[in-house]
């Protein structure tokens, strides 16, 4: 499980202070599939980065899987990321010079698995996302949907408890988006907790829990989305100035 209590996150640039999260509270249970929506600049990515230990925060309490994160140093946070968290990014973030096999291998090497163990996991996960026969291909030789599948295989190969995804379908057309969503639902059904930021109201409704972030705070909702978020089309998505600025 994941618990955030009164998390405060401030970005400071030369003269501007941006309160990206203010009194952010959230509890995610094991096995949840949480869809996070909200206007641009509301703090969704900030939340996800903190949840994924990519960024630190100013105030509040954050427990991940029973571990109090506040006082962990960089090395410990890296290890926790490696062991407990899988990341899926909007722009896939595959390493262009590595073939699919080596891409999925990246987190497994940091984990210190043996060669056989890594090979087994890489093959298994690439097969699971339907790319078992293209392991020697480079990312550039794949479609966007396929690349995102590789990224998902990479995120899952270490069998993390949490899968964090920041607009994983943001760069995909709707049919590819739907197939990635189906994959995520499968993964969730197998026990992995998923937190997914999305602008796609249709996809959000397929999650078993929706939270809405606005102005750096959580407002849990049923199914209906704010008109503002609903009218966002990924392809037209432009970054707008956050309310908090």
């Amino acid at each position, binding site marked *: 499980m994941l618990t955030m209590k009164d998390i405060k996150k401030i970005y400071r640039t030369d003269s501007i202070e941006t309160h990206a999260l203010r009194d952010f509270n959230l509890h995610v249970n094991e096995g949840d599939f949480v869809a996070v929506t909200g206007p641009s600049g509301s703090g969704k990515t900030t939340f996800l*980065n903190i949840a994924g230990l990519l*960024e630190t925060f100013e105030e509040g309490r954050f427990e991940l899987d029973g571990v109090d994160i506040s006082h962990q140093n960089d090395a410990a946070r890296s290890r926790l990321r490696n062991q407990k968290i899988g990341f899926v990014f909007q722009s896939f973030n595959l390493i262009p010079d590595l073939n699919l096999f080596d891409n999925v*291998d990246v987190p497994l*090497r940091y984990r*210190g698995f043996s060669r056989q163990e890594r090979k087994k996991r890489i093959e298994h996960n690439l097969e699971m996302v339907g790319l078992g026969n293209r392991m020697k291909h480079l990312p550039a030789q794949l479609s966007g949907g396929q690349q995102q599948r590789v990224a998902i295989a990479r995120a899952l190969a270490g069998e993390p408890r949490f899968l964090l995804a920041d607009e994983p379908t943001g760069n995909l057309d709707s049919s590819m988006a739907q197939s990635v969503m189906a994959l995520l639902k499968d993964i969730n059904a197998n026990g992995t907790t998923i937190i997914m930021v999305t602008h796609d109201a249709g996809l959000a409704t397929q999650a078993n829990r929706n939270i809405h972030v606005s102005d750096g705070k959580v407002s849990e909702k049923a199914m209906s989305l704010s008109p503002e978020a609903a009218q966002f089309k990924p392809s037209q998505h432009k970054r707008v100035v956050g309310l908090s600025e």
Partner: protein
Amino acid sequence: MTDSKSPSFFAENWEIGPIFRALLRNKVGAMLIALQIAFTMTIVVNAIYIIVERSDKMQRPSGIDEANSFYISSVGFSHDFNSLVTTQEDLNLIRSLDGVIDAVQINAVPLSGSGWSMSLQTQPGTEFDGTGTAVYMIDEHGLNSLDVALVAGENFSPTDIQTRQSSQTHWPDKVIITLAMANRLFPDEGLAALGKTVYINDIEPMIITGIVDQLQAPWVGWDNVENVMLTPEIRDAKSSRYFVRTKPGQRDRVMNEVESQLAKSNSGRILRDMRSVEGTRLRAYRDNSAMISILVTVMTILVIVTGLGIVGLASFSVNQRKKQIGTRRALGASQLSIVRYFMLENFLISSAGVVIGAALTIVLNIVLVDAFSLDPIAWYYIPLGMVALWLVGQLAVFGPARKAANIAPALATRSV
């Protein structure tokens, strides 16, 4: 709660395979750096080899007390100038001065570049080949003045000393030689050469009455620089050179003293070419020293340029791979893993460089050996050069690698 297994430190997780495969997709930059490393290694290793060779030569002892010796020439010009008398008066005067250990008339000086040479043979007759040797003509003060030690036999006695006229061709019947010369004349016999007869001018016998441990001929570039003979002679010539050994630390004072006293004592001659042996050594090896300075400069510049090249390429690739680095951090890379990635990548590039460099080093050495008749390079220069260039690479890449490790993990989600 955390995985009990911490990341293994064994090479199988050190990403050597992926780094190598990624490098193969970005060959050009890596190859340029590898070639630069190879080129630098080739030049540096051969330069160091030449420097060591040269400075070994420069380290060879001349056998004399260089720090406390000097020499000065006297050239008589007046009609009533009596060479022999003047020489004896001059030597008596110099030897009586405070601070002087001993002084001798000598025809040539080690390290000075000019002197006499003759040839000695072990059997009489024109059909036999001789061994080339430098000749120093000295009286019984010679060994003490030069500060060379006998290892066998005895010094010349005053009655041994003969007067040599300028046009004279025959030689005294006694000779002292160096141990090196003894070994050359009588291989493997060493000190047993004492008492043996050698022949000069093909047929004139000389008995070896003494062997000294070490003394160099005047020509430092000569391969047989330790082939030296000393003969018991005083020269009757208008031009006479005196070699003076002083007590430690008194040389410069004594030089002034000798010059002014000699000038006062006899106005029928001029004094010239007064030089310390230290100064003579500097002149003898001036070309070597210049060559060493040039090589050191070239080497230093090359290493710096190569180092900067590596820093440049690594910084460039760190900047280009910011997002990838952020992603790796998001996937669990520690800062150490990122540093290690760039160090390993550099190690692989350097390895290609030093392997090519080893081959080029040998090729250049063969050319140099051929052109300057040096000995071929000792094998261990090659691995030492490889290690040195590896180290240069690792040092150069360390800064950029640390910069890479400080890239924020959040770049994975924040950059487009």
